[in-house]
């Protein structure tokens, strides 16, 4: 089941110069910490001049998929949607 969240969340991100990869590592949401298990897909969208990076990922602590939006205009993270991978 997918649920729209649209809440700002705290995120720890890392960047590897060797792999040339920047991605979220830990997400704090509803007083729980989630570490990233797998980034399924990452793409960028433009809203006018503002670039947003969209990360779709799963976490280690639960059977949970998340869609995270990184707004490059203010460097804020938003958790847009979560899903348990089951039918609605």
């Amino acid at each position, binding site marked *: 089941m*997918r649920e729209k969240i649209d809440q700002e969340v705290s995120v720890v991100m890392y960047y590897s110069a060797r792999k040339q990869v920047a991605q979220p590592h830990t997400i704090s949401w509803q007083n729980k910490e989630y570490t990233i298990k*797998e980034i*399924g*897909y990452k*793409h*960028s*969208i433009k*809203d*006018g*001049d*503002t670039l947003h990076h*969209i990360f*779709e990922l*799963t976490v280690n602590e639960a*059977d*949970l*998929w998340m869609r995270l939006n990184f707004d490059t205009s203010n460097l804020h993270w938003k958790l847009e949607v979560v*899903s*348990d*991978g*089951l*039918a*609605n």
Partner: protein
Amino acid sequence: MDLRINDIQPITMHVDLNSCYAIIEQQANPLIRNKPVGVAAYDSPGGFIIASSYEAKRLGIKLMRIREAREICKDIIIMMPDPEKYFDAHRRFKAVLESYTNEVTPKSVDEFVVNFAGSRALQTGKSLINVGYQIKRDIKKSLGNYVTVNIGIGPNRFLAKIAAGMDKPDGLDVIQPQDIWNVYGQMDLLDLPGINYRYRARLNLAGIYTPLDFLEAPMFKLKKEVFKSIVGYYWYLRLRGYEVDGETFKTKSFGNDYAVGKKTSDPDEVSRLVMKLCEKTGRRLRHHDYQAQGISLWLSFENGTWWGKSKRTKSLIYSTQDIYLSAVRLLRMVDFPAKVTHIHLAVFDVVPATPIQLGLFDGTRLDTKSLARASDKINDRYGEFTVVPATMANMQDIIIKRVPFGSVRDI
């Protein structure tokens, strides 16, 4: 005299992404992999599934309404389309193919034709089969491990597409000129790309019931009796492996569709929806630097009837207001027999917008053009529908972006 089968080396490759939208969603969300998934235009029971995963296809779920799909599999996962993600996948897909040759032609979001004639890969003596397997690996690296593609290699685009469909999913097949008889012998007419029910009926009337009959039919019969045009000659060549589908046609029209979520027969409400389609169409028209010389409007109604009209305009249309004024003239002719379910608006006979040609009786049209360009610049910078005509106030989310079928010129 009969034309022989074209016996050139197969160097045309057709690559298509398996169950494109569904597999990209499965790639993005590992929790829905290996499960029946449908991507639907709306998530209401009447919403139409436009793409289904292989797991869903195996259950018989293809293009159908969600309620019908749920009767087959109550646990099917329904997703709404995410066009930006699919466009991103398209661009990555294209970049992989362009690393092999410049001769890459997108046929749709999930289909490409690659011509390897003169490519570096072939010059270095690599077999196209090995190149195909390398492309599969590169696509996994670029889009993700779950993504698979079908690859077909043939003497022309038509046979390459047939080859790509022979071994789904994740196949790689080659049709050599000498295989053509055997391949056609295992197919029905409707399996041939480009042959629909109407064409099959025409062929049947002429005594052609199988692809082999089609191949053996003389050219004059196809041209004079079956298709009654040059199309018959093209089919004669295409079936024999000669390339007739390589031409790229120039843009003739721009249009937008909208399946009305909240059906209505209120002319004012329909007019507002038409306005938003005008803005979307106008944005695309101007983005490609065209102006149009005609407009068409089609409405479908809940009772199964439809209304449509096309009209050439006296002057060139360019701004959203130009399009809307012409559309409203058409809309005033409609007698609504029921609620509107679907709206299609298009502008046609497009010509380049620059250099600007001023008409004698255009009044302040130059100002309209400047205004349209200025508002496009603002919307480019601050996001779609930041500046809109007053008619469109508070309509931001009414007509959302949809995935395109066929054309990829806006990606």
